[in-house]
């Protein structure tokens, strides 16, 4: 019997594995975006400080660097591998597909990351201790290396959504998967939003400057930079949306909660208004206000953006060939990858999944609910809470329907056939469909008392 390469499933009942990954990813995005943006802003400020011989500006760069070290780099450098750990346990085959396709790109990014971390230390500790030319070399190496990490991640994230060129499926090659119609728009959008986040963080530092004239100057400078970046970023974001594949646009329009897009635009407008207010009245800047704007960006800006990014690639999780539930759903002839859907339709997943315990391999009246739970874990739990909490909880998906026959008909009509755009095809056998329907009909009670 052919064996699909499926891993065991981790399920976190309260949040669902997907949200654990999402929370870590959102924190990482804030920290890493701030870091890269701050590297670019710091490089520019250090250049001005050295060329115009302004020690107070150099001191600001140093203090900004210390803040970045303690906040962004600690948080970013730990939550970066944190995404790997959480993706490993939540979506092992999705991560594996990305890692195995882009290991050398990721390794290259690691070289830049190493240079970046050394760079931030040098920027902080060598301020005022080396000649101006050497300091500028340090600053520019730091800034460019930092931006290069983003250039690499953008390509990998693009591949995650959709391989850049259709030829990737038939001819392979990491370049064909990496560069696509949305790469440039993504680079520009992210660069702008990174600079915007860096300006928000920079204002937090500026609010602690004691000398009033210099504080006002820095506040205004950062407000100008931040406002320009926010407006340009919004334009590039709009352009980026237009470059997305048709199916992604359809999913964005039909599957996202109605408040998502307005929330994104509202936070962007709020940030622009905030910067405009500081430009007019720099004395309004207070540490608490600057910190609140960072938190607002995290909650109202990055969280919806990440949710949207996750939604628009559904039902796939990587490269349009690995489903969110870890099943390979499309052939990739260039790499000899074959869809597992036919295999699972013929053999049933309970019989063929390597991590299903023997008593559940065959459904019988004594194990139907437990077999149903196993099926829900494998097929559903990556995107749905199997109770009343977590992402898209199953109890709410069925509109309160607890009739097993009707649920079974729905499963067979919509899911087994693959007739829903945002849902994977779920190739259940008849006995599996019955077991899953019984389990779903028993929610949430059975889930609470089940083994």
């Amino acid at each position, binding site marked *: 019997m052919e*064996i*699909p*390469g499926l*891993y*065991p499933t*981790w399920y976190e009942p309260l949040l669902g*594995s997907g949200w*654990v990954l999402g929370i870590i990813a959102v924190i990482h995005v804030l920290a890493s975006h701030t870091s890269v943006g701050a590297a670019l802003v710091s490089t520019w400020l250090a250049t001005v400080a050295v060329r115009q011989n302004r020690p107070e500006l150099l001191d600001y760069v140093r203090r900004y660097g210390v803040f970045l*070290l*303690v906040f962004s*780099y600690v948080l970013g*450098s730990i*939550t*970066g*591998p*944190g995404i*790997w*750990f*959480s993706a*490993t*346990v939540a979506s092992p*085959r999705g991560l*594996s597909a990305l*890692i*195995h396709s882009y290991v*050398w*790109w990721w*390794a*290259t990014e*690691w*070289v*830049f*990351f190493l*240079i970046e*971390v050394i760079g931030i230390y*040098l920027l902080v*500790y*060598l301020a005022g*201790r*080396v*000649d101006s030319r*050497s300091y500028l*070399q340090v600053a*520019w*190496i730091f800034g*460019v290396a930092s931006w290069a990490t983003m250039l690499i991640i953008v390509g990998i994230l693009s591949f995650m959504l959709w391989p*850049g*060129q259709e030829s990737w499926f038939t001819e392979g090659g*990491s*370049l064909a998967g*990496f*560069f*696509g119609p949305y*790469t440039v728009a993504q680079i520009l959008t992210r660069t702008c939003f990174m600079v915007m986040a860096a300006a928000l963080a920079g204002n937090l530092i500026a609010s602690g400057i004691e000398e009033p004239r210099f504080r006002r100057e820095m506040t205004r400078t950062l407000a100008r930079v931040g406002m320009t970046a926010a407006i340009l970023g919004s334009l590039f974001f709009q352009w980026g949306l237009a470059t997305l594949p048709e199916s992604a646009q359809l999913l964005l329009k039909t599957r996202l909660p109605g408040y998502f897009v307005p929330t994104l635009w509202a936070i962007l407008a709020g940030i622009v208004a905030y910067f405009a207010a500081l430009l007019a009245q720099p004395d309004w800047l207070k540490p608490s206000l600057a910190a609140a704007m960072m938190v607002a960006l995290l909650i109202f800006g990055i969280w919806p953006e990440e949710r949207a990014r996750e939604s628009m690639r559904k039902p796939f999780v990587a490269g349009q060939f690995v489903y969110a539930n870890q099943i*390979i759903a499309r052939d990739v002839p260039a*790499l*000899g990858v074959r869809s597992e859907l036919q295999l699972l339709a013929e053999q049933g997943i309970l019989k063929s999944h390597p991590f299903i*315990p023997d008593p559940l391999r065959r459904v019988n009246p004594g194990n139907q609910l*437990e077999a149903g739970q196993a099926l829900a874990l494998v097929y559903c739990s990556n995107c749905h809470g199997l109770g009343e909490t977590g992402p898209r909880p199953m109890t709410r998906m069925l509109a309160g329907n607890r009739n097993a026959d009707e649920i079974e008909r729905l499963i067979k009509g919509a899911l087994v056939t693959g007739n829903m755009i945002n849902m994977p095809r779920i190739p259940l056998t008849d006995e599996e469909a019955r077991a899953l329907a019984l389990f779903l009909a028993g929610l949430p009670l059975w889930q609470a008392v089940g*083994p």
Partner: protein
Amino acid sequence: MELETLYALRSPVGLPSHPIVFLVLLVLTWALHILAVYVMLGSTALALCGSVLAGGHWRRLSAAMLETAKVAVSIAIVLGVAPLLFVQVIYDPFWYVSNVLSARWAIGFIGLLLAAYWLLYYRYFRNGRETASHLTLATVLGLFLLCGFIMHGLSSEMLRPELWMRWYAPGGHIDPSGSALHDYNPWRFLYFVGLMVPVTGAWLVGYRGYLERCGERDTAYLDWVTALGKRCMSAGGLFSLLIYVSWMSTLPASAGGFAASAGSLIAVVATLALAAGPLVCRAGSGYYRPMLAAGVAILLIAASREALRLKILGGGFGYDILTYPVHFDTYSTLLFFITFAVLGGSTVAFSIALSWEAGKAQGIYTASPRIARLGNASLVALAVWLAQYFLFGFLTMIG
């Protein structure tokens, strides 16, 4: 778990280069990572000792080691990314299963490390203003060790495929909570943690050499640091050897015969070499020799550790990493190696040289022509890298 299943768990995408390349990089980068981890653990432990003892030399050493620990933890994390990447490339069936089976621990690792790192910074910024500083440092050290234990547990679980189903579905009922750390070997953990003592000893002797070059005149402190470093090397190395022997006596049956193999002998010789570190110590630049020797010893121990893993998976379960399908990707393979060697080499060399010289100089340091050229070369390499990125991107998109 059947061999056929282990092979089925491999990524169907295959590898973009031969598995042996990833294996070599895994050993090399893990050695670099663990060296930084040892310095991080050792300097935190010494900062804690200094905080508790609070005597003259100890007080000064404690402050210096706190500074060291703060940087070492950054470097350890950055260097840890590479082996984490390579281990999931060639050992994906094993690494992913062990992580899923102990998912809460794998996720918890992130939170614990974050807490330790921020506590260390907290201690650093409150240096001298905190009465119970040793409690903070003890917590930091405890959290670091707990993080190490989690990694040890995950690495142990990946070598026990025969127990995976028992852990995942005890009594035939699936437990998807990932709440248990199922496997560990106290001797193995103690051995790999204990190596921090001789490595930190070598670091201390190197620290003495650096202070001397910076014009330090307190010879009593310098001699005290050197003696402490040498004691750590000798005693720590010999202690580690004893632990190693105990660990070898507890290896699972799947490792059959490894304890008496050449791979094991390499680890014994390397551990002994760590204990013999003081013998290579010389005045002047010779103070750096023990650290160099420690680096080589840890590299050999990393190779031995990998030999044991290959022995267990190959001898015990018949798994052969060399049969991993390869779809060679020329561009990305060259991209990494050229970036690593040329761009990484020049920028890291420039950064180290500049900070080294600036650290020794009194007042503002003006870079020598050689260091300035290295800086320029790094910037040119970065510009060339950016140019090729956009050039290949453009060619791909129009092609």
